[in-house]
């Protein structure tokens, strides 16, 4: 099992009347953003990622969001660049660049290649389409989302791997000269991570290329279907999926006792799901963002994923909370319930949790949980 420390960098201070807004994203007024407080958050959050490297996490992870208090990293590559100079062991995971909404995918190829060199080959490159609201925010046509994602992916891989200059004429992008300087140090290119949320096209896309398929926050029964879909896609291609290529994403809160853990975790887990992820259906699924087939699948499987209370979220595997032994036990259960996985992408800095809480939670996890779970999910164990 590999363990990574993932950060969203949330803007954790919300006004008392927050519930009157549709969401923390897109239309939530930026008058609510205090730059001085934001600066202190960046400093603190980078410290936390650096601390995770010192604690022995295998990876430290950042991602991209726009116009949102849910995550304050419009450019994950800037954060990754900062981390290259202050860490030495952990993989630096960019999970990922939202290549569906980027105007210039060649720039992403260039930046990841730079990061790869700056980190001495420690970069993992995630690619995401971008969340629905970001297609509003950056005026990118969501009906082109899949096409833009696929084309940007193909262009970036070719730019990294082609030993000679080439031209590119696609539906969305045209380049007469693609001639990447610098080229990445990892060969043939940095490992690729792709999040999945039920699309069979994505499962097949990842299985064909042997990319790591990672879950997004959803109930266990649904994540199980995604992981099974990825494994089935691999089987169809004639191989057994390596568990290391399946990554389970989940918020984790560890404290010295169960009682303390739940007392501290409940408000921050509720913040994450009730405020951080508060959004309207129109924001999540703009027209064309999903194919009719995927939408039908989501509707038929019952989009309403059961309850959203703290107890429901724990029961559904959407947060793992407790003492080190309880968290170890719960993650082992989830390992079985999900049919196995080889990576845990843990969100330790949940919503408005304090720096001390995050550090303590990560410490307990690294020293008491990781060693016990380490043997799970390596090739041949599932």
């Amino acid at each position, binding site marked *: 099992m590999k363990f990574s420390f993932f950060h969203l960098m949330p803007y954790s201070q919300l006004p008392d009347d927050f519930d009157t807004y549709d969401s923390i994203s897109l239309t939530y007024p930026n008058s609510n953003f205090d730059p001085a407080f934001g600066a202190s958050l960046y400093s603190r959050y980078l410290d936390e990622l650096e601390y995770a490297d010192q604690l022995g996490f295998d990876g430290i992870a950042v991602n991209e969001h726009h116009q949102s208090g849910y995550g304050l990293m419009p450019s994950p590559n800037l954060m990754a660049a900062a981390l290259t100079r202050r860490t030495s062991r952990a993989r630096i995971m960019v999970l990922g660049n939202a290549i569906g909404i980027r105007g210039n995918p060649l720039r992403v190829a260039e930046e990841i290649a730079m990061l790869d060199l700056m980190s001495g080959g420690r970069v993992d490159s995630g690619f995401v389409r971008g969340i629905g609201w970001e297609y509003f925010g950056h005026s990118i*046509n969501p009906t082109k989302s899949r096409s833009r994602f696929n084309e940007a992916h193909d262009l970036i891989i070719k730019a990294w791997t082609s030993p000679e200059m080439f031209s590119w004429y696609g539906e969305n992008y045209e380049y007469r000269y693609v001639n990447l300087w610098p080229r990445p140090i990892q060969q043939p290119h940095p490992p690729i991570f792709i999040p999945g949320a039920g699309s069979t096209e994505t499962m097949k896309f990842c299985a064909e290329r042997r990319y790591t398929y990672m879950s997004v926050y959803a109930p266990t029964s649904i994540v199980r279907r995604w992981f099974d879909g990825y494994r089935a896609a691999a089987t169809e291609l004639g191989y057994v999926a390596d568990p290391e290529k399946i990554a389970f994403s989940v918020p984790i809160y560890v404290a010295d006792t169960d009682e303390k853990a739940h007392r501290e975790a409940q408000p921050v887990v509720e913040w994450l799901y009730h405020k951080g992820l508060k959004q309207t259906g129109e924001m999540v699924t*703009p027209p*064309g963002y999903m194919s009719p087939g995927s939408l039908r699948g989501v509707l038929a499987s019952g989009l309403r994923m059961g309850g959203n209370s703290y107890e429901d979220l724990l029961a559904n595997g959407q947060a793992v909370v407790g003492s080190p032994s309880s968290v170890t036990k719960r993650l082992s259960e989830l390992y079985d319930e999900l049919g196995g996985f080889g990576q845990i992408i843990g969100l330790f800095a949940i919503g408005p949790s304090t720096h001390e809480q995050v550090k303590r939670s990560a410490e307990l996890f690294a020293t008491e949980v990781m060693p016990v779970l380490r043997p799970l999910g390596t090739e041949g164990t599932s």
Partner: protein
Amino acid sequence: MTPVGRLPQVTEEFLELAGGRVHLLRGGTGEPVLFLHAAGGAGTWLPFHGGIAAAGFEVIAPDHPGFGKSDEFPEEDSIDDLVFHYLDVLDALGLEKPHVVGASFGGWIAAELAVYAPHRIGSLTLLSAAGLRLPEHPVADLFLMPPAKIAATVFHNPPPAAPVADGPLDIDAIIAAYREATALARFSWVPFFNDPKLERRLRRISAPTLVVAPSDDRLIPVEHAKRYAERISGATYAEVPDCGHAMYFEKPEEFAAVVTRHLREHSLKEQRS
């Protein structure tokens, strides 16, 4: 041609074009009127259509690509594609120079069609047409509105909200609505319901033009209709009172009457003589 339901004079047809099939409804006899529908109401024969047909016109109402029962035409993704699409439709129907009436999104297509091919337009009627870029009077973002808010926005007097059904989701209806929203977004997400070059090209329009706005348009502000009327040579402007952007859904008789008056005043026969 298949009769539609219990409307004896309305028939349903499919046109075979190179890129797919176009579904259309046809009713009435007289001078041909090509009606280009708004974002809602594709494939539906409404009292508004019936009102124009009853006044002695042949109303031909196709569904746009990706709407109603028309095919997707996935290669069409911009307003100029729609212009060429409708030139193909006119040719397939054998219409040399019909009346053209367009509403909202369909009004934008009608205006562009009249700019590209002024010689193919007998008369032009724009009902609160999209298409102009007026940053000081932006089009409201209907893509961000939940269905109940759309109804509250487009009607001057919104009908009472339908009771929320307790039963299972009507998945087919949701998918059908999402398909049409996807087609709409394909053409109008960005630039948002506008063609930055359209306004200065409007001088090319030569057909007698009527521009109509509902008095209380909270989706496309009436300034858009007024700008159309200013920029199109000889255009007349009319407002329908106490009405929202739902126009011919909210005030079908009034809209049929104002359109019919314009069609009669600019008979295709008189134009030829």
